[in-house]
């Protein structure tokens, strides 16, 4: 049935109509001008946007906590898998690179090197790959009610932060029980400020990746690939910098924030010393920079996330 043309032809009885848009007519024009009626679904100013997110902080925390706790409930061992899976990964990499390939090259505590690398790299890599499809996988919620969409990214960052707590416990326990045993020292406490800095960096990356994932859904393959490149380029499983002789590549690699970050964790946990201040500042600057840029990018496109 084509109603449109037929309706237009027949449904236009003669008579003087007011054909102007409703918003131009009284009393609506006045109500809109007075701010009594406000446009729905337009991007708020950045201040209002931040206030909106702040008003939902209780929801963000409660939602993230519930989702972390119920995520593995369909598996028999439940939350044990939060720790079990990364531990299995670390064991696998240790067998391949430590026992089969014997790539340790005189690292004192190679199992410790791998455990820290794999488990803490996973924290960032997970955030990145999940963000690529974040807006797509949450479209039911986006279509169901209106809320600042950046909440979804923050909620993901909170979920990952909650999940990293048992992971860190696993790192500590493994370092202690696997030879050559490392025992807690004061420098281990420095992990406490470093994890939030990594979380901030992850948040910034998530904003950027989630925003790009909306315009270019195919990019999720790209980020899976990128996370593998980063895994080898950041010295996650073997001290890659010792294999590089090209000076430019060496510079890029050793200035990569993930490389610095993992290095800092190893300095604290394996060498029992506090990393230099320069490293802290570099990581903090990356975290703040990525988060501000990512947040602005994300906010700019606020109206797009609801489109089909």
């Amino acid at each position, binding site marked *: *049935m084509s*109603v*449109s043309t*037929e*309706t237009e032809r*027949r*449904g*236009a*009885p003669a*008579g003087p*109509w*007011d054909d102007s*848009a*409703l*918003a131009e*007519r*009284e*009393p*609506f024009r006045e*109500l*809109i001008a007075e701010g*009594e*009626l*406000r*446009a*729905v*679904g*337009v991007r708020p100013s950045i201040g209002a946007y931040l206030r909106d997110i702040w*008003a*939902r902080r*209780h*929801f963000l925390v*409660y*939602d993230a906590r*519930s*989702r972390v706790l*119920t995520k593995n*409930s369909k598996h028999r061992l439940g939350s044990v898998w939060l720790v079990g899976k990364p531990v299995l990964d670390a064991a696998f990499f240790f067998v391949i690179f430590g026992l089969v390939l014997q790539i340790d090259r005189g690292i004192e505590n190679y199992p410790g090197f791998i455990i820290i690398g794999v488990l803490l790299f996973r924290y960032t890599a997970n955030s990145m790959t999940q963000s690529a499809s974040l807006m797509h996988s949450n479209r*039911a*919620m*986006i*279509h*169901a*009610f*209106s*809320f600042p969409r950046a909440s979804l990214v923050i909620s993901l960052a909170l979920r990952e932060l909650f999940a990293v707590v048992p992971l860190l416990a696993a790192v500590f326990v493994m370092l202690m029980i696997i030879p050559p045993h490392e025992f807690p020292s004061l420098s281990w406490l420095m992990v406490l400020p470093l994890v939030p800095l990594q979380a901030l960096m992850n948040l910034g990356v998530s904003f950027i990746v989630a925003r790009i994932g909306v315009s270019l859904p195919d990019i999720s393959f790209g980020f899976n690939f990128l996370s593998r490149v980063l895994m080898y380029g950041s010295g996650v499983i073997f001290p890659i910098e010792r294999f590089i002789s090209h000076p430019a590549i060496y510079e890029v690699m050793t200035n990569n924030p993930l490389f610095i970050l993992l290095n800092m964790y190893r300095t604290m946990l394996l060498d029992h010393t506090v990393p230099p201040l320069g490293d802290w500042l570099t990581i903090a600057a990356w975290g703040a920079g990525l988060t501000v840029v990512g947040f602005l990018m994300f906010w700019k496109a606020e*109206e*797009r996330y*609801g*489109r*089909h």
Partner: protein
Amino acid sequence: MAGTEDHRGETSILVDSVSLTYTSTSGSSPLSRFRPGQGRARRTQVHAVRDVSFSVTRGEFVGLVGRNGSGKSSLLRVIAGVEPATSGTVYARSTPTLIGVSAALIGEMTGSENITLGCLAMGLSPAEVERARPAVEELAGLGAAIERPMKTYSSGMGARLRFAISRASHPEILLIDEALSTGDASFADRSRRAMDEALEDAGTIFLVSHAAQTIEELCTRAIWLEQGRLVMDGPAEEVARQYRWFAHVLAEGDEEKALGLLNDAHAENRRQYG
């Protein structure tokens, strides 16, 4: 109904020339877009809502009626602000609340935990959630089942809980998308009372339904959409009567006659309210 000069202070929603168009790439094979001369030409546009305008005042209970695919749910999403209109603007006195909070709920959690989650999602503070909890539990009427995981609920029980949660924030403008089709008779009764209360909150309610009877029983005013266009806007009984007649004729397979009815209703509407 478009011009309501005497209700100047009471306009709660103004829908101004709203259109919503989806562009989708058709074609069965993903390879077709690589064939020369085809790719972009295969894009089709779907006009979900076409140039719809109306205004609603406080205390009105508006039914959006129309067949499946007539654009009524799309229009509701635009009014809710969850999907931006392709052109035109919706103005509102306060943020409209779509009953869709179900998307935030988690099946593994108990009903009572989901009340907390859903209320927080709508922007209530933890103290407000505790104050709203007894009323939500009463309206849902689940008894002891409120402490069971939500995934163990029947679909009717789930619908009751979701409706009860979305009433908790006492929104001034409430948007409902066929929420009442599930639930037994006693719940239908309770939800009707809840909606009367919502109206008394000096509120406005939108209800989407393809059933003329629902619209007739609950609403004061109805807007009939067909293929994204506003066909008729008027008192609920009158619109429901014409819509039911149209649907009946169409069901009998007389498209020609149905089209005539549609055009008559549209012409009538323009003559009266244009």
